[in-house]
């Protein structure tokens, strides 16, 4: 890491159990989401070979997906 933030701050909480992730198909793209609620998930990563999927705002990391819609 090459950062001005002290390592102890960057790595704080790294030992905690990582969140369980789920891979789903969302509007023609495979997406890795972190379930946050019933039927809702937060985008973690887009698993697609279509470059244009990475321009989609609904698939930006951190975006909330409503699985019902």
């Amino acid at each position, binding site marked *: *890491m090459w*950062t001005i933030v002290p390592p102890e701050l*960057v790595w704080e909480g790294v030992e905690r159990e990582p969140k369980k992730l789920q891979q789903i198909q969302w509007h*023609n793209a495979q997406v890795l989401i972190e379930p946050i609620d019933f039927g809702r998930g937060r985008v973690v990563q887009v698993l697609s070979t279509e470059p244009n999927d*990475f*321009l989609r705002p609904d698939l930006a990391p951190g975006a909330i997906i409503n699985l019902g819609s």
Partner: protein
Amino acid sequence: MDNGLGTVGGSKVPRAEGFYPGVEGPAEEPLMPFEEPNHDPQEQDPAAQQAALENIKELGQTEVPGPMVSRIHCINIVGQVEGHVLLPPRNKTTKYEHIIPQLVAVEQNPRIQGVLVILNTVGGDIEAGLAIAEMIKGLSKPSVSLVLGGGHSIGAPIAVAARHSFIADSATVTVHPIRLTGLVVGVPQTYEYLDKMQDRVIRFITENSRITPERLRELMFRTGDLMRDIGTVLIGKEAVAAGLIDELGGLHKAVTKLEKLIEEQKSQSNEPLDGPLWQAENAEILPVKDIPLGSPGGVDH
């Protein structure tokens, strides 16, 4: 439904021609998959938009301005540049696995004509940062970077990767030596490895800015300037004076410069890129046996 992240669901609202003043409309361009109304961020809820249209018609207004889509794509480099290890959730991160393919889409999308990279980063993973920097450098479309707040550590190569770099008057760039965290094997090779990593970054920065390697090293290893580290904090003008950043300026200057570069590129559109991005003829090819065995590689922390 509208979750604030763009509309999902069919829409029958007619799309406006000519997204951007002075730019040819998208009529002759092939329809890209993401241009489907489903994913257009500019479009509101179809029902709401239909209602708005009705309202305007009732009031006798004839022209409805369509959604404006910029020809500039803006990439934000914020927080930590996240590398091969998922950082704990308290870090704000820029994810290379998203930025890199996004730049591929930017390169291919005919509607995007320039890239504005806005940096406010504290640094992060070297390989991820250099990967993003190389992607920006390798774009055939004009790119301008703007450092706001801070473009520290690995932020510096990303800032200089753009064709023209700006720094706000109050923004800072911290240059300091790379350090290794975690388990470090106490052998001389570790130091050589660290030195090689340092060289990679120094080479990238000096090749893409006006600063000399000697000057950059001097700034990097200066003592007494930083409280917890060795290195130098360059504030606005100082970064320009050192030759690291091209120009002092804010948003207006950065956007104007990008527009200018776009126009320049358009007027000479048949010419090749800035220079040979890949100098195969000059490359020195090492025979396999000369490549030192056990060269470290991979994760950098």
